[in-house]
């Protein structure tokens, strides 16, 4: 009995020693965690302020750059516009002084217009019954057409009515620039400078004016000068003195005389209204704006175009002012620090209790949940700021970039003593995309081309899609500029010289290599590569940007509204050029311009919707991991418990084998369906499962083999560290793949 007592005492003593040791370890771990926590807190604050400052500076630099470029551009336009004034003023002075006889006004207007061909129209309108030999109203108005011919456009309406401010305002106020308006006689949007004139013998100070002399500019011409370029610019518009849209991506707003105040009213957007007032009041500055409908954050930079009382407003996507890669890394760092901080906090809290190991399982699950939340945070950030792959292409969605490109091509041709390139404007409208397998995609839609007389003489009509398998192209419309032109019906292609627009319906299957390494958080770029049919001639396809109302890539120009692509969402679309280097001249020594020939691509970026892979793949994986954890929980050396639970090493191994079989098939199916040449992100989940399957199997055999030690939880380490280890591996793998 004494020996039994002694034995019991020995066991108790051993247990106490072990307990004290484990408590000492726990206290040490807690203290180290507390120290790390403090250091981490200090470090995080420093990093946070640095990041905020950096981002603010980046945004400010972008805003300054854009503001400067707007300022430079507005000066250019103002100089042009101001040139109208002396022309009109001189006519008024010459009439008043008698140097210009009203009978000769027609000649004078035409002469001045020819000498100032950058103007659009020049004219005069008399007050009722003021003209020497006319009925109630008399006016003459001439315009200069695109081919530089001067034609008369009669003003056939009563311009003295209240609504015709181009006439009324100069009479009341003197020299005035009118609000841009759609001229009934001009049949286009114009802005006009008008001044009152007096016939000889009339006193300017005493007598009412005899009428108004006016000169105008076509807004279309000005629009070409008004182009603001910066990668962060979403879009821009120009407002008149009264807030009317003069330049806007949505042509409809311009044609209907829409105003920014109407837009603000309809959108119930008071910030937009306030900004608009600042802009039309001639102020400059910027405001932060959240679109009430889309919740998108942007900067609205406004600057006066002082000569006309107009204002240029540029909308800059706030997200784009920050480097996306940088942002993604900052967020990753933030999530990493936060997750680590929370996990350390849990260790400190739980290890501060007496008998800390009692709560270790609960603490480990809590810590793991936090780490999983961190992984979820990484996924969200990766979805929002995707990894950008650098692609060898020239993105072209604005006139300036396109002009630069065409000029460079002409210059290159000069330098290489080859024929000058002939550019064919080409447009694309996609109606559907469907994936067929991992690397095949079926598309349908419309493609059109403009051919000009002279420039495209002898060029055959049509294009090819090099990556398409048996494309179907059916001509669906053809518009001739001059249907009576005989050159449009010639059969011999060398003589064919017709100005026309041709449209085709296209249906094709494209073979392209997609990168699935980031599955299920991947995005893919589908491109339609186009060559001109005469690909041996120096014919270069260029995008027909004028046919797109809103060429901003984020607004997906050229993609049908309501586009359906199950499992994917549309992100951007744009045109680009890609330099194709040929290693052959296709057997023709006359294949000019083949070397480094730029080909036109129409690109569409789509992003995989996370829900489908989450439900079909991640949830099953999670369930398998939970099942394995249950196996760890029920692994016991106690025969009583083992009987009750049905635990035996062999059962475990059999069960795990079945699980392996399921996981293996899933993995194999994923690989085959996506045919990726690289390890996909999601595959790491499978790798983790394989390792855990092996570990659980080995662990259960070990437990079954060794004797139980009373009072000791034999599976303590496995139970406590199962989830933290798993979640940590996924945590770091996610950082490694997406950072």
């Amino acid at each position, binding site marked *: 009995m004494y020996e039994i007592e002694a034995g019991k005492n020995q066991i108790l003593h051993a247990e106490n020693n072990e307990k004290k040791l484990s408590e000492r370890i726990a206290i040490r771990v807690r203290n180290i965690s507390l120290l790390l926590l403090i250091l981490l807190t200090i470090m995080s604050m420093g990093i946070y302020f640095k990041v905020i400052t950096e981002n603010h500076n980046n945004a400010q630099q972008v805003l300054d750059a854009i503001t400067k470029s707007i300022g430079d551009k507005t000066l250019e336009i103002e100089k042009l516009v101001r040139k109208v004034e002396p022309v009109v003023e001189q006519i008024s002075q010459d009439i008043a002084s008698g140097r210009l006889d009203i009978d000769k006004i027609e000649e004078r207007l035409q002469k001045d217009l020819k000498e100032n061909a950058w103007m659009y129209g020049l004219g005069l309108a008399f007050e009722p019954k003021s003209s020497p030999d006319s009925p109630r109203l008399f006016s003459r108005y001439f315009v200069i057409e695109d081919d530089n011919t001067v034609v008369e456009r009669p003003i056939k309406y009563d311009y003295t009515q*209240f609504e015709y401010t181009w006439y009324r305002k100069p009479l009341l106020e003197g020299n005035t620039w009118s609000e841009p308006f759609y001229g009934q006689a001009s049949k286009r949007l114009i802005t006009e400078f008008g001044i009152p004139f007096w016939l000889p013998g009339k006193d300017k100070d005493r007598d009412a004016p005899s009428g108004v002399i006016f000169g105008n500019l076509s807004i279309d011409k000005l629009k070409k000068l008004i182009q603001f370029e910066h990668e962060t610019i979403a879009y821009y518009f120009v407002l008149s003195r009264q807030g009317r849209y003069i330049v806007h991506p949505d042509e409809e707003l311009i044609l209907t005389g829409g105003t920014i105040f109407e837009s603000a009213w309809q959108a119930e957007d*008071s910030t937009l209204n306030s900004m608009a007032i600042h802009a039309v009041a001639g102020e400059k500055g910027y405001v932060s704006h959240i679109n009430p409908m889309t919740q998108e954050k942007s900067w609205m930079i406004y600057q006066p175009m002082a000569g006309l009382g107009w204002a240029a407003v540029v909308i800059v996507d706030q997200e784009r002012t920050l480097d996306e890669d940088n942002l993604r890394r900052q967020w990753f760092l933030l999530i990493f620090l936060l997750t680590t901080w929370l996990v350390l906090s849990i260790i400190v809290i739980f290890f501060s209790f007496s008998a800390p190991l009692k709560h270790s399982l609960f603490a480990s699950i809590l810590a793991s949940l936090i780490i999983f939340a961190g992984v979820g945070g990484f996924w969200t950030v990766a979805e929002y700021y995707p990894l950008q792959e650098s692609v060898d292409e020239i993105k072209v969605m604005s006139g300036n970039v396109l002009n630069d490109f065409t000029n460079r091509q002409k210059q290159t041709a000069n330098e290489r003593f080859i024929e000058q390139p002939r550019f064919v404007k080409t447009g694309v409208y996609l109606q559907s995309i469907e994936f067929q397998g991992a690397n095949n995609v079926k598309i349908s839609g419309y493609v059109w081309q403009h051919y000009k007389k002279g420039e495209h003489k002898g060029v055959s009509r049509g294009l090819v899609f090099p990556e398409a398998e048996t494309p179907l192209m059916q001509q669906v419309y053809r518009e001739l500029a001059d249907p009576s032109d005989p050159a449009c019906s010639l059969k011999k292609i060398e003589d064919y010289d017709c100005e026309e627009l041709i449209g085709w319906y296209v249906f094709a299957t494209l073979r392209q290599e997609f990168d699935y390494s980031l599955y299920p958080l991947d995005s893919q770029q589908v491109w339609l590569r186009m060559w001109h049919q005469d690909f041996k001639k120096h014919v270069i396809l260029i995008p027909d940007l004028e046919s797109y109302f809103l060429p901003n890539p984020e607004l997906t120009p050229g993609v049908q509204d309501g586009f359906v692509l199950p499992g994917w969402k549309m992100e951007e679309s744009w045109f680009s050029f890609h330099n194709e280097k040929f290693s052959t001249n296709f057997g023709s020594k006359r294949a000019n311009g083949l070397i480094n020939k730029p080909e036109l691509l129409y690109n569409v970026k789509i992003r995989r919707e996370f829900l489908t892979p989450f439900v079909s793949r991640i949830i099953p994986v999670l369930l398998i991991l939970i099942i394995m954890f249950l196996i760890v929980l029920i692994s016991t050396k106690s025969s009583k418990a083992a009987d009750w639970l049905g635990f035996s090493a062999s059962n475990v191994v059999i069960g795990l084998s079945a699980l392996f079989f399921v996981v293996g098939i899933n993995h194999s199916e994923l690989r085959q369906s996506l045919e990726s040449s690289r390890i996909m992100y999601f595959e790491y989940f499978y790798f983790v499962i394989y390792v855990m399957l092996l570990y659980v199997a080995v662990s259960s055999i070990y437990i079954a083999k060794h004797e139980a030690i009373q009072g000791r939880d034999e599976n303590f380490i496995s139970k406590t560290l199962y989830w933290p280890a798993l979640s940590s591996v996924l945590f770091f793998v996610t950082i490694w793949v997406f950072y």
Partner: protein
Amino acid sequence: MKSNIKQGLFFLLIAVVMISLIFIIVSYFHRPAIKIGVMHSLSGTMAVSEKGVVDAVLLAVDEINQQGGLMGRKIKAVVRDGESSPRIFTEIAKALIEKDEVEAIFGCWTSSCRKAVLPVIEKNNHLLYYPLQYEGMELSKNVIYLGEVPNQQVLPALEWTFSEIGKRIYLIGSDYIYPRATNQVIKDQVEKWRGEIVGESYVPLGEKNFSSVVEDIRRVMPDAIFNTINGDSNLSFFKALRESNIYPKSVPTFSFSIAEDELSLFADVDMDGDFLVWNYLSDSNNHINQEFKKRFTEKYGAMSRIGNPMVTAYLGVHLWAKAVRMARTSEVEEVLKYTSDISIQGPGGMIYVEKNTHHTWKPIHIAQIDKNKQLRSVWFSKVPIAPQPFPQSRSEKEWKAFVDEF
């Protein structure tokens, strides 16, 4: 023992936190109301015009309270009757600020009232939301001028008249600063535009006898009459015109101080073809107006018309509330920093309070009255017109001297 003490401390900490939370919650829900002053004439000659404005202010207060008030505090309106007397208004303003400790004042109609009250407001660095159209020629950082100034009301009407009717104008108004100053603006502009002022008459507030004025009008037969008479004198004026066979078909009248809701008082007077000029028309077909009218009707019963000053007064309360939210306090000194450079969507369009002048940008209707006393817009500016408190025909200094002289 050690663990017992630890546990005890832990529970004590929990108890302290719980008690603090309860205290904070109770305080939050039982914070005192924010008081605002509402001072208008509920008696006297101006009552006919101003009563509706008080109703509109109270409606705005109700709406804000129904949405939870401001920062968890309800708003309480302290309403006082100015009895159409500038002297009484001054006393009321003092009492509202010093005794009632209101955080903002919404009030006044006539410029005499505003001018009398202004020194009190400025001395106390307080805040007045003034809802009426007025002559301009004033700037105060303590006043938000919600109504139209001459370039937003009178001058568009003048320009339209010159184009559509004629250039011979007769001016009639009540004899105080607003009509006098407004008419001076008109005279300057008529001269610039080579028109003609064919007559100019002023009558005391409350005047009922217009026989000599109407005789003068009959003698010169202008193309149009520009009317700045205020209060119930307008009814007598129009009756006198009709009795002398002067009808809108021959001589239309543009009235700048008759609000749409007051037209019901002219039930027996033919106004078919006369004009009003306002930012707000009650038949405006937009959802904001429809909802506003519905709420007004639910609170006050079926109303024949809602007038422009009522709407501006209503918006004034909401503008103040917006400023309070931005300032995160109702203290006047802080709120003053946020009262301008803000826009608000109203039943008559978007209204913007300009930073430098505290005046509002707004679009304007020229509306013609028909035989049923309904208003039809004949011209709408579509875009907000920038306020020019000091009309461009003279310098600011000259206008101030003009006002001072008067």
